[in-house]
């Protein structure tokens, strides 16, 4: 007898998501990821001025708007044939890199950690640290969001470890807030960097603004290396079994990104097993068979056999995984292999824990890149070339960007200076998209095979696996 278990709504994500799994004899046999929100951004962009896309697409998702800002202005620049000044490109990478790091921080601490550590242990704290006492007061209130029903499953419950993790959960909020000021000094404000315009960055960047950015980067680096990296290691040591849970197809792709200091930090390619193939953009398409859209793209809730608002991107007809783990396997294989080998014997795959580990390893790689990049900035040179919005261009173009959850593409086509079609192929669409025929989506595939005789444990494992992909439903459905 099989049983259907559902998690609805899944909290600690962006947007709205429902997960259902089919359990039989203690094993998950089937899984469905239901994207539960649609807004229609691509349709809203139809008929608008191309530059408006740089503002509107950022609003698809506030947690990773920087990447949409950059991908959209790059696509528009390709369409208008604009050469961006060197400084403009440097500043964009400074924004992207710092953004990706802060996004990984919120993911690990504020979205994932409560699945692994028992925060209630803080109630046993009896020391005199004022910060910890305030946290204890907050968490032990009779009703608050930081409560979780007692789980029988394995959680980190050692007092010292828990106190460290709980403290860093709240510290992460402060670190992100400070990092946001580093993004704002270059990008005007955050969420939504208005200084990202086709042609470069509008901000008049002075050396003192770069000092401020550098100071923020230093503080972020301190947290990443002293706290985040160590805390992920605590989880890896505690839950090594999760290196063997939650793998999908072992097929990955990545676009080139962060390439302003020689060799690109992340290379383009398609990885299948240990073989890296060149990426052919013509092989990318979005399928609608299990999604609430008719063939012409019109929304159609309740369509036969459809169960999600998310579309299903495919490469050469196949689902592909994207994310920090994909980028590292493609471009920094030795680094991630060495890190994984400390906890797990066997091939490095994309697994629940390796995805968490890959994020912090990626943070360290990007930090080094950013510190080097600051000194590349050429004071006195222009950051932007002014692009005339009155040009009536007919044509199409696309551009890609790194994003925290994987790699991103924006495509634009215009007729007589107005947007005819705008299409965003998002990392979370790749990972969270539904099945096409017998081919399950990436996250669905990763859930199949979860084992336990206990329903609660299956649900907990399901949540851990799903969150390890950093669900951004706001992006995946737009």
């Amino acid at each position, binding site marked *: 007898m099989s049983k259907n278990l559902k998690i609805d709504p899944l909290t600690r994500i962006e947007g709205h998501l429902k997960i259902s799994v089919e359990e039989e004899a203690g094993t998950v046999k089937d899984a469905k990821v239901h994207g539960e929100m649609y807004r229609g951004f691509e349709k809203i962009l139809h008929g608008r001025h191309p530059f408006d896309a740089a503002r509107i697409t950022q609003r698809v998702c506030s947690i990773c708007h920087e990447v949409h800002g950059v991908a959209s202005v790059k696509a528009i620049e390709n369409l208008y044939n604009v050469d961006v000044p060197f400084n403009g490109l440097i500043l964009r990478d400074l924004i992207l890199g710092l953004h990706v790091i802060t996004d990984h921080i919120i993911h690990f601490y504020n979205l994932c950690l409560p699945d692994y550590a028992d925060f209630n242990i803080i109630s046993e704290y009896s020391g005199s640290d004022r910060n910890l006492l305030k946290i204890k007061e907050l968490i032990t209130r009779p009703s608050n969001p930081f409560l979780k029903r007692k789980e029988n499953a394995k959680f980190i419950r050692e007092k010292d470890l828990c106190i460290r993790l709980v403290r860093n959960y709240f510290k992460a909020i402060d670190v992100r807030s400070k990092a946001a000021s580093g993004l704002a*000094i270059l990008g005007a404000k955050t969420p939504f960097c208005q200084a990202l315009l086709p042609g*470069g960055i509008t901000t008049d960047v002075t050396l003192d603004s770069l000092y401020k950015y550098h100071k923020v980067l230093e503080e972020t680096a301190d947290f990443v290396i002293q706290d985040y990296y160590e805390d992920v290691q605590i989880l890896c040591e505690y839950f090594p079994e999760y290196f063997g849970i939650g793998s999908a197809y072992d097929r990955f792709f990545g676009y080139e990104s962060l390439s302003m200091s020689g060799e690109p930090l992340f290379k383009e390619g398609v990885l299948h097993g240990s073989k890296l193939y060149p990426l052919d953009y013509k092989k990318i398409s979005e399928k609608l068979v299990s999604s609430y859209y008719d063939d012409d793209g019109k929304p159609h809730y*309740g369509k036969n056999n459809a169960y999600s608002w998310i579309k299903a991107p495919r490469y050469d007809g196949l689902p592909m995984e994207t994310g920090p783990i994909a980028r590292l396997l493609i471009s920094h294989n030795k680094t991630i292999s060495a890190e994984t080998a400390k906890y797990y014997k066997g091939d490095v795959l994309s697994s629940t824990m390796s995805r968490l580990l890959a994020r912090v390893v990626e943070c360290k790689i990007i930090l080094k890149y950013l510190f080097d990049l600051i000194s590349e900035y050429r004071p006195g040179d222009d950051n932007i070339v002014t692009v005339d919005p009155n040009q009536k261009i007919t044509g199409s173009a696309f551009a890609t960007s790194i994003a925290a959850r994987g790699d991103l593409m924006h495509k634009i086509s215009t007729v007589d200076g107005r947007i005819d079609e705008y299409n965003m192929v998002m990392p979370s669409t790749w990972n969270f998209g539904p099945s096409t025929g017998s081919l399950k989506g990436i996250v669905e595939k990763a859930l199949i095979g979860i084992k336990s005789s206990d329903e609660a444990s299956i649900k907990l494992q399901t949540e851990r696996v799903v969150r390890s992909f950093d669900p951004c439903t*706001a992006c995946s459905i737009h």
Partner: protein
Amino acid sequence: MLTRRQLLQHSAKLSMLLFGSKVFAADVFDGFIKLEEKRIKVIFIQGQVCAGCSISMMYGNETSFMQFIRHIISLQVHPMLSFESSDDYLEMLENTVKNDDYILVFEGSIPMGIPNACNIGGLPLKDFIKPAVENASIIVASGTCSSHGGIPAAVNNETGAVSLIEYLDMQNIKKPYLRIPGCPVHPDWLMGSISYIAATGKIPKMTELKTPETYYKDTIHNHCSRFQHFSQDLYLSDYAQDKTNCLLKKGCRGPVTYSDCPIRNWNGNTNFCIKSNAPCVGCVHPDWPFDSDMYITAEKVEDISWWEMQEKVKNRDNDKK
């Protein structure tokens, strides 16, 4: 520690807040004695969102999110923070909603044309939020989507998205509410307004649009540090050169957008759009994201079709003569 007298005063205020009258002060006071301390309960619900208003709130500015939840409010549930998921999460939400002593902060729009374009816990959003809306003591529409419809309700939208305020009208629900528009909301506008309610038991003084006067009574243009350049008709034409000139001819919507961004700044008083040499796109405006182009190249200020103050500028030339 509060004195008995302070506690009584506070009870009277809370009574006013919860019941619209001070007569329940004694009850509230008794409640205090039982609980020792009572912060106003706040719940967050998100509709068709990008999550930007919550993310912005957590970044903070003058206000800090941690201070806010430690000292000002009693945060009950938040979809992005709550440790519980699924039925356990819904149960926590229901437990708060069954009483009527909480503030509802709602982000995002509500799809009325395709109700299932946003589902939570197996219900279309419009049904899901109904009990929470009906029982709330005060409703705070956080952000432009929730206040005015925003991007999901823009021209060409397929889901029939409406703001929370339009939803209240459609469902004929009468509740005290305030709009805190902004795409995203500024942390101070949101946390500052809720703090005012928590501290005084009253809704802050509001503009005609039901936005708090403190933050929204004057235009960005009037607060702008480039106003002097505007007065001297010095306009930016090249982003790389005229880095202090008025951005009006590039499409800046500061003259028609009511907020205090220029004197408040964002992200720890760091920066804001115009300071960063980028035209205001009017994200606080009820018509955001507008039908007309965001970025233009106008030869003369008279060419800016959306600008209701053109006449004044023309007259200004006459005045000079």
